[in-house]
């Protein structure tokens, strides 16, 4: 399972960049529709995730790469989610000790 020298394709790179540009325009444009609260964040982040996916898979060429490289990337995101998730288990469920504090 050699990971390494995968020739990049000029066409694929250019198309990726175009897709990224289009998504950027969409994410800015969507803002003027004023989607109601939690959904605007969800839309913005979903678009960002798709963009990041394109960069990782095509520019960084992870789709042709060793699975350990993919695994390390997945782990970093997973552990970031653990950090945020378990911390929010506290911050979202605190009972104010001093009323009104």
């Amino acid at each position, binding site marked *: 399972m050699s990971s390494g020298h995968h020739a990049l394709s000029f066409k694929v790179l250019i198309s990726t960049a175009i897709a990224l540009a289009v998504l950027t325009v969409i994410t800015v444009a969507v803002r003027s529709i004023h989607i109601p609260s939690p959904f605007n964040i969800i839309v913005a982040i979903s678009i960002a995730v798709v963009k990041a996916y394109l960069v990782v898979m095509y520019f960084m060429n992870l789709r042709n790469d060793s699975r350990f490289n993919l695994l390390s990337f997945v782990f970093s995101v997973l552990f970031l989610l653990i950090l945020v998730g378990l911390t929010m*288990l506290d911050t979202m469920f605190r009972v104010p000790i001093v009323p009104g504090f």
Partner: protein
Amino acid sequence: MSTSSGINADLGLKLKRFVTPDHPEVNYAQAEKGIKAWLTTVDHKKIGLMYLGAIAFFFFIGGLLALLLRAELWTPAKTFLDADAYNQVFTLHGAIMIFLVLVPSVPAALGNFFLPIMVGAKDVAFPRLNLLSFYIYLAGATFSLYSIVTGAVDTGWTFYTPYSATTGTSVVSMTLGVFILGFSSILTGLNFIVTLHKLRVPGLTWGKLPLFCWSLYATSVIQILATPVLAITLMLLVMERTLKIGIFDPALGGDPVLYQHFFWFYSHPAVYIMILPGFGIISEIIAIFSKRRIFGYWFIALSSMAIALIGFLVWGHHMFVSGQSTLSSIVFSLITFFVGIPTGIKIFNWVATMYKGSISMRTPMWYAMIFLFLFTIGGFTGVTLGTLSVDVHLHDTYYVVAHFHYVMMGGMLIAFLGGLHLWWPKMTGRMYNERWANIAAFLIFTGFNMTFFTQFILGAKGMPRRYYNYIDQFQSLHQFSTVGTWVLALGFTIILIYLLQSLGKKGVIASKNPWNGRSLEWLTTTPPVLENFTYTPVVIHGPYDFHKPIAEFEYGIESHGHGHHDASVHHSNEESVNA
């Protein structure tokens, strides 16, 4: 992965037997001579030894500070340190022992020296990065020590906000020091992971990897995933002090408990950085000195990985009384119980390995026994503390102090000493005086229990930690504990003396395999040659297959390196065989 493919005649490997002599004509230390060669070396063995020297030095400093602390506690009121000085000394003691001694100890010193040899490689994957990590370590150490000169730090090693954001002491230089040390730790972990993945010799599948390597792998994963969060947290703390950004300091609108979350996201996994490599050493020692194939190889290997991963889910057990939400306290307490399981699995496997083994009680094995005894106590008291309702009473008492000394000193440090005694002959080519070694081990065991078992009792009776005075009733227990530290100091002094003596003119020359081990480091010369082997070893049997004749471990193929340093090559008696 080209180098890890199983041994297979179809690959066209022409196996030969390479019987290495006991001693090389030119060993790694003789191959490049002089101070400059040492300071600029990229040889993992020399870098490991330089780390060993630096760590021993800081252990000495940290130990002196501990003796000071215990001496102050001789009387209930002020003995000779005032409250501020006491705070500074325990902060420094903790920070030095954790960040400068225990975190790098086994990986950076023994791991650096042995991991590449154990996988049959010539060096780690990135030798220059390895040297860089050593200098980053020195830079970080300098920063930390600089804080002593400029007013010391009195926050404790945890640098909790809001106090750390407001105290007048030099928190910035200390935290920058720890920040820098983090990078050194990251580079070591990165190097080990890549080395283990990419540089194993033919035949050395994951299932034949010595357990010490597995434990270092798990440790490296933690170093990679946790250390960056510590780095950014300390960065934010520095910003809090300099720019008053208001993220952690409640006076500026921030949340101090958030700091604790970020800090323990690193520091609980970091306690496993400070024990997993020790587990690895104990696995090696118990297998070698029981002369038995290790019981449950995969359980031990994978439980290290399990500990590394579950270890990320329990940090909140340090925060039960911090004001975090009750929900999270309950969840963290629950998950904490699960960490005990993989640890327990290991203990059972070690005991099962010894069962009906032919045990020889040489010095490293004594340390393994001491480890089993002390670590088990440390682990069990950890589970006690993980119990939410119990911890509300015991938090911030000497019970906690005793717990973490049982795991960190009774666990990791004892394992480190075990590893040092196991590999000293290989590293230096000399054998130490085992009688003195056993006496020292006995003194350390006794002194340790005198010092710290007492503290369980003190803690249970309500003695809070980090106080320089106490009520009169506690005096006899405190004095007993202090006397224990003197016994400990005596033990360490003896170790220093006989180790240095072994290097001198009268030192006994060690053979290449004094304990009759089977992993690759025992098959090369003592001390090893510059690039570890004069051939490329090919691994056929597992590292604990003591029932197989040693000859079957000595196969290899001609080395195809670039062959500089030819001086040290070609003294092996070669004997062709058909594989």
